[in-house]
């Protein structure tokens, strides 16, 4: 009887203490609202066995003025993507982008995850993509020397992030981009570093800010760094971001190599991202 009571006491009072430790050691939730912030990736991925639809839209230059509703009537770029959570740590995605008819296959792997106990203070994820440039052959130099491989480019990034308290998150992400073939004046390999942060001002709304800096520059220095800032509204199934930025390409390696809008000249564009989880 005594043994039985001892066991019961253990189960009722002692075991939950061990259970509490395992709950606290679980990964921190919602370091960012969604897997994308401006054109950057975050450590967030879809839940296992679930899909995520991502629509990213970039309008024209704000400086085009009221005649073009500050860029909304101008030529715009759009990417539609679909991501799938294979496991808790692995995501696979596909997407298509209007500019240059870019078709992308992408993947994200959670390497380390920040834990609630603080034992693991940061999250680290690896993001990669392979992109096919779908333009006509005549865009890849003289047609006699065209090869399909000329269309391919790749992007690899380590995303290091941390949630500070409940309302502030920050990440830094070095990257390398590789283009199989480039026009004269451009490089095959680009190194870059990005940073982004979010401050939640209410349970569902936050302010995002981001900066991207290409460490490799083109011959005439026409690939520019980017500054982005905007607001974000999230629900359990949707996340909506509205912001301004000077990047236009939506695909990371094309942003690093080809974005020529100069933020010091006020060449900003309005952008929005919508993520739907289902």
């Amino acid at each position, binding site marked *: 009887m005594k043994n039985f009571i001892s066991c019961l006491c253990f189960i009722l009072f002692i075991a939950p203490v061990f259970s509490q430790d395992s709950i606290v050691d679980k990964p921190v939730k919602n370091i960012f609202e969604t897997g994308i912030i401006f054109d950057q990736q975050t450590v967030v991925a879809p839940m296992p066995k679930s899909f995520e639809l991502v629509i990213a839209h970039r309008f024209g230059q704000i400086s*085009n*003025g009221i*005649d073009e509703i500050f860029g909304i009537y*101008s*030529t715009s*770029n759009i990417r539609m993507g679909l991501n799938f959570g*294979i*496991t808790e*740590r*692995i995501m*696979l995605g596909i997407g298509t982008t209007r*500019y*240059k*008819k870019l078709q992308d*296959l992408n*993947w994200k*792997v959670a390497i380390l995850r920040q834990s609630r106990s603080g034992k693991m203070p940061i999250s680290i994820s690896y993001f*990669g993509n*392979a992109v096919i440039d779908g*333009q*006509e052959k*005549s*865009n*890849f*130099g*003289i047609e006699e*020397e065209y*090869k399909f*491989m*000329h269309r*391919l480019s*790749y992007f690899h990034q380590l995303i290091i992030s941390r949630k500070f308290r409940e309302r502030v998150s920050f990440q830094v992400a070095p990257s390398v981009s*590789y283009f*199989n*073939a*480039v*026009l*004269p*004046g*451009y490089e*095959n390999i680009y190194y870059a570093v990005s940073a982004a942060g979010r401050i939640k001002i209410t349970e569902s709304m936050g302010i995002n800010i981001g900066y991207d800096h290409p460490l490799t520059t083109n011959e*005439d220095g*026409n690939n520019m760094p980017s500054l982005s800032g905007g607001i974000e509204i999230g629900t359990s199934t949707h996340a909506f971001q509205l912001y301004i930025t000077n990047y*236009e*390409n939506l695909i990371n390696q*094309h942003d690093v190599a*080809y*974005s*020529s809008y100069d933020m010091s000249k006020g060449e900003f564009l309005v952008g929005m991202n919508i993520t739907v989880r289902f």
Partner: protein
Amino acid sequence: MKPGVAIISSLIVLFIFASCEKETLNTGGWAKNVAFQKDVLPMFQVCTDCHGSGSNFDLTSANAYNSLIEGALVNITAPEESQLIKTLNGSAHSSYLNQEQKNIILGWINEGAKNN
């Protein structure tokens, strides 16, 4: 090995092998004896939907030459540095003209960007 890890690993290996190319594309030579009215102006027809009359950069037949010259979009001393060429190579405009057409424009700029 778990299926997800196998898929990702396979993709990474595949794309490592597919990224063995490293080339600078041969864009061919610039055109010679280019006439603006006959060779260059007709190309801008695809541009006038956005760059038509009254737009901030008018490329219609009557105004295209003045827009290019007064907008400082051509660089006669360094044709490849011309803002027109940089814009045409940029993401938003890269699909509109092919390399052969850009070589005609480069040839025109190289020959003085005349309204001939």
